């Protein structure tokens, strides 16, 4: 595969790939008609897609540092946008987001605003400048801008804390999907997921990850949108759900009024399996205080701009100009999925609770619901549960419980779509979790191999040795993540949100002020990173152990406190110590201008 030629042929290559994937879906659909079992379809989908990713990973193998760390800095804008979107949208976005909206409504949708609005900060404050800088990793920027090994090392620490928190959740998600689709125990499935992840990144580093992420984006977006459109048509809600669900949203409001939100007693709830929830909040009404909404959105936005695995995607564009545009494309591709999640939640909820629809189960007799095929399947998978609390024999709204994942995973089946769609959704979820895990593991391994090993420990190391270290670290970090994931400590979503808070506590202001405030110096950056991370973490531990918190900052938004401390510490300490030297000031001037050679 010739490099220049490959880049020029990208639209064709991925066009053929997309066509091939659609062909595969059709083939599976025909297989289903001819009696292929649901399990065989699921296995075929997951194995086929992983095989393709591994093939891309192998074709992208490289022995050059530039290709390994920044994909040779030649990834075109639109394709980098797709890769970033896949990098960004994790197993949580794919599997858990629609479920969160389904259960919590408006208060949860702060995440939609936060996880998109953050890209405005990325585009304006950071990405183009870090691209001009010419660094390989985010700590590379911190270390060079502020000078000294300690700044570099602290940046690696913050990066590792944030990314590692995030990556265990992703490996957990690949394990969950692999265990369901391949029907193997979770503890083994986690390692199947891990090996698939490493196949994409080990040989080609950033180059391999880039081209697999583009392929994964195509799979995950088809897997998300196709069911949404199909279900909407199936239940007669409109052929383009995004513009046509107003009546359905209003209807859910009416039904909520009619059923009422009956509170269950603690004794009744004790019978409900762990992790399942009932509908207790209004679908489209404003059900959170402004501050609760805004603080969560703000934390996610600042976290977005501080997460290294996203930032480093913009190091791969050919120019500063391309980096800016690429942020726009990234958000566009993310928008396609995020704007569909509330529609899926609406369709899912309506098809379950509307008694006038054939799929509606509320108001039916309990025995009747328990006899439905899909109910039995998902009840067995521990994702659905009904119980006749009031003993009237009829299912009420407060007597139906579901797991958050079921909204994405089970709705196709509930709406009566063929099983091929469920297989496709499994492949999409796998793609989403794998692509994010790859980006994260690579971010950590690259930071440690480049910033700690090459820049601090052995600056004379040859390229071959550096890349060997990078690859060994990749495997070690992957296995460490998988081992923790196999212990199943936290849920998928909680740890994802923590990662944002950790990243913003330690990195947001040191990064932003590094470009936008010339006076920021080494001592300030050290104080900002160390105190930011420590205070954020301290606040989290305090609230987790029964602390009351203040200003309405919760364990989901502790980054607001951490980053505020970081800002104050950084400004105060910078002003108390001497200004950065002339060379550093000149470096900042250089970063602010797109033209000319990169700084490093």
């Amino acid at each position, binding site marked *: 595969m010739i490099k220049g030629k490959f880049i020029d042929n990208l639209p064709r290559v991925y066009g053929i790939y997309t066509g091939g994937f659609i062909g595969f879906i059709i083939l599976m659909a025909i297989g289903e008609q001819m009696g292929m079992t649901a399990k065989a379809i699921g296995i075929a989908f997951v194995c086929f897609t992983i095989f393709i990713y591994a093939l891309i990973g192998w074709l992208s193998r490289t022995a050059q540092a530039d290709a390994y760390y920044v994909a040779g800095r030649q990834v075109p804008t639109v394709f980098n946008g797709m890769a970033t979107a896949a990098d960004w949208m994790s197993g949580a976005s794919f599997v858990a987001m629609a479920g969160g909206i389904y259960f919590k409504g408006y208060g949860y949708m*702060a995440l939609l*605003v936060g996880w998109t609005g953050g890209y405005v900060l990325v585009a304006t404050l950071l990405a183009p400048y870090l691209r001009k800088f010419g660094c390989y990793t985010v700590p590379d920027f911190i270390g060079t801008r502020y000078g000294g090994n300690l700044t570099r090392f602290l940046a690696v620490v913050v990066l590792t804390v944030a990314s590692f928190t995030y990556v265990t959740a992703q490996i957990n998600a690949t394990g969950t999907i692999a265990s369901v689709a391949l029907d193997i125990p979770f503890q083994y499935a986690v390692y199947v997921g891990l090996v698939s992840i490493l196949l994409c990144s080990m040989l080609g580093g950033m180059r391999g990850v880039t081209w697999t992420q583009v392929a994964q984006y195509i799979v995950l977006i088809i897997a998300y949108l196709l069911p949404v459109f199909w279900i909407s048509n199936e239940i007669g809600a409109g052929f383009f759900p*995004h513009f046509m669900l107003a009546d359905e949203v209003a209807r859910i409001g009416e039904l909520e009024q009619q059923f009422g939100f009956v509170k269950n007693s603690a004794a009744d709830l004790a019978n409900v399996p762990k992790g399942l929830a009932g509908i207790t909040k209004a679908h489209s009404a404003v059900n959170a205080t402004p501050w609760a909404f805004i603080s969560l959105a703000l934390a996610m*936005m600042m976290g977005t701009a501080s997460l290294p695995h996203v930032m480093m995607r913009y190091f791969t564009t050919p120019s500063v100009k391309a980096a800016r545009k690429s942020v726009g494309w990234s958000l566009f591709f993310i*928008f396609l999925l995020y704007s569909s999640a509330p529609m899926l939640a609406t369709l899912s909820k309506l098809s379950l609770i509307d008694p006038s629809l054939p799929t509606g189960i509320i108001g039916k007799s309990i025995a009747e619901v328990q006899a439905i095929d899909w109910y039995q399947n998902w009840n067995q998978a521990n994702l659905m549960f009904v119980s006749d609390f009031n003993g009237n024999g009829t299912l009420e709204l407060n007597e139906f419980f579901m797991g958050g994942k079921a909204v994405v995973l089970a709705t196709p089946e509930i709406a009566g779509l063929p099983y091929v769609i469920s297989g496709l959704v499994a492949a999409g979820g796998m793609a989403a979790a794998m692509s994010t895990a790859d980006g994260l593991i690579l971010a950590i391994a690259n930071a440690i191999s480049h910033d700690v090993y090459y820049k601090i420990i052995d600056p004379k190391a040859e390229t071959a040795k550096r890349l060997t270290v990078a690859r060994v670290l990749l495997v070690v970090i992957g296995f460490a993540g998988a081992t923790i994931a196999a212990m199943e400590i936290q849920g998928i979503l909680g740890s994802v949100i923590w990662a944002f808070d950790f990243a913003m506590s330690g990195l947001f202001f040191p990064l932003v002020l590094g470009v936008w405030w010339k006076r920021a110096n080494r001592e300030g950056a050290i104080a900002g990173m160390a105190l930011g991370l420590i205070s954020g973490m301290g606040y989290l531990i305090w609230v987790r152990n029964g602390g009351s918190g203040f200003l309405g900052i919760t364990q989901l938004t502790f980054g607001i406190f951490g980053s505020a401390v970081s800002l104050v510490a950084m400004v105060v300490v910078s002003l108390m110590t001497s200004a950065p030297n002339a060379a550093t000031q000149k470096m900042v001037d250089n970063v602010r201008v*797109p*033209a000319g050679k990169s700084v490093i």
Partner: protein
Amino acid sequence: MSKNEQHWEKTRGLLFVTLAIWFVFSIGIFLFGAEMNEVGGPFGYPLTYWFTCQGSLGIFVILIFWFAGRQEKIDEEFGFSESEDS
């Protein structure tokens, strides 16, 4: 040096405008979430609901492309654009 300073001043001006628009649609409007939701929005959705599902998200996409174009113009004006460089 002064050319660099002028360029940076304009860049900063654009940043403030962009962040002001960003602030309105990511934070500002949600201060009035409850009131706004009483109003009908595009396609018949309640207004606040529409902003959280599509409105704000779409505005961010457009905003970034608009910002990228404006910044490019500023860079060109001062001859700092990469195309003129290489």
